[in-house]
């Protein structure tokens, strides 16, 4: 089976996000009001082949921990869906 994986990697709470704060300041300067708490992360999409959803999940999770994130500062949200 082929699964669509979507991973959103964000900085953990309490970790400074200079990019987010700079964007926040810039939006205000551009005249957009009321935009607060800007946080920037990355998202990764791919397809993965696996026997079943549990297997797919566990591979994606391992990929996240070993390679795609550093759990010390980042956390990941993972979504997996079978490709129709």
């Amino acid at each position: 089976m082929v699964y669509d994986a979507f991973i959103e990697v964000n900085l953990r709470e309490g970790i400074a996000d200079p990019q987010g704060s700079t964007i926040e300041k810039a939006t205000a300067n551009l005249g957009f009001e009321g935009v607060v708490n800007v946080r920037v992360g990355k998202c990764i999409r791919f397809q993965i082949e696996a026997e079943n959803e549990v297997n797919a999940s566990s591979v994606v999770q391992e990929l996240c921990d070993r390679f795609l994130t550093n759990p010390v500062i980042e956390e990941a949200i993972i979504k997996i869906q079978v490709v129709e």
Partner: protein
Amino acid sequence: MTELVHRSLGLTDEELAKIIEILGREPNHLELAMYSVMWSEHCSYKSSRIHLKRFPTEADHVLVGPGENAGVIDVGDGIAIALRIESHNHPSYIEPYQGAATGVGGIIRDIFTMGARPIAIMDPLRFGPLDDARSRWIAEGVVSGISGYGNSVGVPNVGGEIVFDQTYIGNPLVNVLCVGIMPKERLVLGQASGVGNLAVLLGSTTGRDGIGGVSVLASAGFGDEEEDAEKRPSVQVGDPFEEKRLIEGCLELLDEGLVIGIQDLGGAGLACAASETASRGGVGMDFNISAVPQRESGMQPFEIMTSESQERMLAIVTPENLEQVFSICRKWEIKSSVVGKVTSSGALRIIEDFGGEVLGEVPASSLHEDAPLYQRPISKPDDMDEATADQATKLPKPEKIEDDLFDLLISPSWVTSQYDSQLFLNTVIGPGGDAAVLRLKHPTTGIDTGRGLALTTDGNHRWCAVNPRVGAAMTVAESVLNLACVGATPQALVNCLNFGNPENPVVMWQLSEAVDGMAEACHAFQLPVIGGNVSLYNESQGTNIDPTPVVGVIGLIDELTAVPPGLSWNEGDRIILLGPEANGLCGSAWAFQKGHRRGSLEMMDFDLHQRVCELTRDLVAKSLVTGLHDVSSGGLGVCAAEMAIHSGIGCTLARIPDHISFFSESPSRVLVAVNSEVIPEVEELVTQYDVPHARIGLAHGDTFTVKNLLSVSVPDLQKKWNSRLVDALDGGTAQG
């Protein structure tokens, strides 16, 4: 309650007793937190300070010696140079990118704090072996962090080191050196004076970053959930854009004469900056904790005072200048707030709003001047005699010496091409030479003095593992010789002492020996030590790293009108080896490659080394050599191979009878390539300086041949040299 808490903060019972004696009462949590960070090893140097006193620190041209944020020397033409090196080893192990990035940020602040514009950084790096996945992940992350921060903040990276060895597998070393330049009159010190003057906090907001150690107070003192304490991030994130604006803003404040003293916020954050500026100026300070701009809500006073949030500075200004200070800060989009007032009391009082409740009060000077000093027990390793007797020359001779040579070749360019090495149009020799060479331009007028600055960093854990005293001396000697190879005379040294756990008497012995060896060499070369940094507890799972003192040395070139010769030779050049005969293999890269990590080293001949350096400088100044390279890591074999690689021209060498003379790393040797027409002149100089020498070969063709030893093609050498790091690190790395 305090009784229970102080130990979890890392304070001993004796240290607590001392605090009680100073205050004449029990400290509260806030005060205890401040003492615990200020009296930590990192801030107080309590284990190493008594040893550091043995360094020579004075010379006529030294304007500021150890103890300030950076050392400063006078280089003539009204120009002063600030220099400092620091480690960010532990943070880089946990989060390589940010650990290294914030290391760069920190050292740069130390430099512009003195009034100097940072003009170059260097990054001596050490990681576990390339076949270890986690070490590769760390190396990759550290290099990207240095690149990401350094390039963006706009300070060129002109050199460093990259070493891979088993000893760093659980504890990489990330040292960063920074050089700054200023008109002499702009020199400022981190001190507060003038009762009624104001302390202005500049830069980033304060969050809970890097309060790791004292976060225990949250659960101990205020009833928070323990989990909360765990969630507190001890990882700091660097913001090079904020730092860039701080550099420009602070230098403008100094140029306009608006600042009495200025201090960066590093380890121990506001507690350190407030107490140090006050105590250096012999005054006190009322510190308004409510005025500190905070990134997170609900921060406790001890968190605000000890947070290590990055990119912040504390400036002392008069009330009359305040408006102007704010206006420059607005221009550079720097947040600025008045957080303190200079008082005459000598006390650092932490208050809630000026005139509000006093949350803590300690004598400002007690936080650092009264920090404990330890004479920790020292002892030689038990197996010293046995280890000394185990000579590497007894190892079997290599069957295929070319394979051993290939294993020692490693090009740093995978690393160095990721660094902007050219910004400011000063870089005459960037990463890749024996030493970096920069044009010396006047910092205000921009006028080229026609002279040059030269910089090198060196460390050698292998020599120091075998004999820390001799190894440290040889490290200094190598630096001095690296500078001579670009025609520079050394002016001052900074060091970063990376050692293991100081509570281990053998580690303290290594430290003490290394300090003695370094001091001896500095005396011999008349080189003042103007600053340094000590990084202890470099250990993992009970194993200490090999002792790794790293030095950074700055030199001057009197006349920089052409690019110094560099590492390549021309077809037909004669190859001459200057310096004494090779002697032994202990501590060499070759021996370590064979797993042989002990033995003995003889103390070097400083006098001969000086003559070799003087001769080398003279040869370069008189343009008598086409190319040259000092013999260091990997010995004569690697030295000659690197010259062949750089020039794309081979050579035939003789008088290198065996693998011992090929791989020996004994000191004070330089390989020079000379056009045959100037041989007589060169030999006359050599005789004049009374330096032993040998004509050992000829540069030609495209094979690298050592008679009776090996013959390999230069393209093969180049391929091995170039591909090592690319193959190991380019495919994406994982944490393992």
